């Protein structure tokens, strides 16, 4: 069915080329130099048929989605490495965080325990100082009453 299809040949495409283009003879010689090296028109037909077969053999052995899967498999490979690395990182971070948390709790506990007397002495001083001021006020009032 495909043999019946007709496409414009290069000479038709060249019809509207600009005036500066290479002349027809030169273009033809170049074109012939760039055709596959076959000896005759029969050999040329056989050549294209054989090439088509080789192409289709390669196509048949290639999975249609191979390139996609190839990229995906590459990506999934990297993704796997990334996931393992991320999991290890999280585990390490969790462990460190947990250890640091314990240490912080311990430090906080110890600081509270050791700072209690100081913490308690401040109000005591306040109370003491408050007592002094009361006595001072009372003495002042006593002196002023005379």
């Amino acid at each position, binding site marked *: *069915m*495909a*043999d*019946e*299809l007709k*496409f414009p040949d*290069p*000479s*038709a*495409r*060249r019809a509207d*080329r600009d005036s*500066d*283009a*290479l002349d027809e*003879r*030169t*273009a*033809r*010689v*170049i*074109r*012939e*130099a*760039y*055709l*596959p*090296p*076959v*000896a005759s028109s029969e050999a040329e037909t056989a050549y*294209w048929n054989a*090439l*088509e077969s*080789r*192409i*289709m053999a*390669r*196509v*048949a052995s*290639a*999975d*249609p*989605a*191979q*390139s*996609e899967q190839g990229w995906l498999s590459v990506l999934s490979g990297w993704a796997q490495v990334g996931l393992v690395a991320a999991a290890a990182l999280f585990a390490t971070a969790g462990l460190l965080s947990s250890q640091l948390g314990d240490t912080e709790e311990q430090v906080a506990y110890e600081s509270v325990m050791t700072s209690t007397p100081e913490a308690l002495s401040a109000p005591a001083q306040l109370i003491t100082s408050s007592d002094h001021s009361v006595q001072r006020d009372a003495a002042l009032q006593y002196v002023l009453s005379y």
Partner: protein
Amino acid sequence: MRIPDEERALVRAAKAGDQEAFSGLVRLHQRRAYLVARAILTVHEDAEDALQDGFVRAFQALDRFDPAQTFGAWLNKIVANAALDLTRRRKVRNTEELTDALRSPFRDPAESAELSERLTAALATLPERARSVIVMHDVEGYTHVEIGEMLGIPGGTARSDLHHARQKLRELLKDLRG
């Protein structure tokens, strides 16, 4: 551009996994696609490799093909990419081999052997991209925009490359003209 109904049907069937339909597309487009690869690589065997790579890539990417565009234009872009990949992977052979590869002694018996030899030698002296552009444009009839898309360069750059390639080729062949 109007897309032939037959091609549309082949693409639809190929997208559904019909390898026979894809074979029809190969039959339709392999000649022009080969010439695109050959314009870039110049060596026949390399062009064949790029062509096969290109068709396999196209088959694998069929689900991403937009049916509103022509299959040939899409395919040629893929084949050109495969050819450019190949040029990057291999540092293509030396000028002597290139010139030999460009010769085609069993073709055009009526054509001037001198012209053929001088042309192939002159083409071999052009920078790789300039040679691709002049072959694609003046020989194969692609537009600057199409060439730009295939080679991954702006259309204006393709136009400029073409201008310089023509100048150089004319300079090299001036004693043959007339």
